[in-house]
């Protein structure tokens, strides 16, 4: 069945998405992700469909909007996702875990940093495996951004996209933040216009150089 009418994404947004490289996959594909793949580029890189990515991002934002922001855990251990997660949580009020995931954050009640979220969002099920496993023990649903080579066990909602790019992760979190605020009814035109992708992008620290993975 088709999604609702207001989900039909406009062309400008799709162009921005393609420019940010969100539609790029990896050179490996797994069976779980096969149904999201649009085609293969001549150099062997699999591609996602821009329309489908936006549709899934909208669905994920709508699902997250069912919960209070204090009940959402957002996890990213990826270099380019850390700044994006921090900014996302500043804007929306969710619980950030950027960088190292503390062991037992969802399972050990005696710890100071123990949290009890209703839903967990991870940027890569392979890097953030700790969060996925703990969410499975705590019986919480997991939303995950998956590339073409991610195995999707213990995931309840997949966002098919490039989850390793310098520009693609900031784009995804920027778009999710916007949609989340709109779905929650907290968005004002000033707030939406003040959000830019640059705020979500990792700034290089002097003396330290980031490596581009894709």
């Amino acid at each position, binding site marked *: *069945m088709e*999604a609702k009418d207001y989900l039909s994404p406009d062309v400008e947004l799709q162009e921005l998405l393609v420019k940010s490289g969100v539609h790029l996959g990896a050179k490996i594909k797994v069976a*779980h992700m096969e149904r999201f793949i649009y085609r293969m580029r001549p150099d062997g890189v699999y591609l996602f469909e821009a329309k489908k990515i936006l549709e899934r991002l909208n*669905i994920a934002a709508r*699902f997250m909007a069912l919960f209070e922001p204090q009940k959402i855990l957002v996890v990213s251990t990826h270099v380019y996702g850390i700044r994006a997660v921090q900014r996302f949580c500043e804007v929306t009020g969710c619980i950030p875990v950027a960088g190292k995931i503390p062991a037992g954050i969802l399972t050990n009640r005696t710890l100071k940093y123990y949290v009890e979220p209703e*839903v967990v969002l991870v940027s890569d099920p392979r890097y953030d495996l700790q969060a996925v496993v703990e969410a499975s023990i705590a*019986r919480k*649903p997991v939303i995950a951004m998956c590339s073409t080579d991610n195995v999707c*066990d213990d995931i309840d909602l997949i966002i098919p996209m490039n989850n390793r790019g310098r520009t693609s992760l900031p784009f995804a979190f920027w778009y999710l933040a916007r949609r989340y605020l709109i779905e929650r009814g907290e968005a004002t035109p000033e707030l939406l216009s003040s959000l830019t992708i640059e705020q979500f992008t990792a700034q290089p620290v002097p003396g330290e150089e980031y490596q581009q993975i894709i």
Partner: protein
Amino acid sequence: MAVKTIVFPRCTSCNRPITPDMKAVHFTCPNCAKVTIWRCRICRELARLYTCPACGFEGP
């Protein structure tokens, strides 16, 4: 003595009853938010597809 029956929720993918000791997950449908979707441990591990009975959304 009156006979008491317990109705367990059923997994949306495989339709097996879910007992409390299973590591199952339940959440409302991400697309329409009308139906509660249950996924048993095995279906989650194998990433089996689930279909929302109300709106036809196919996940994960």
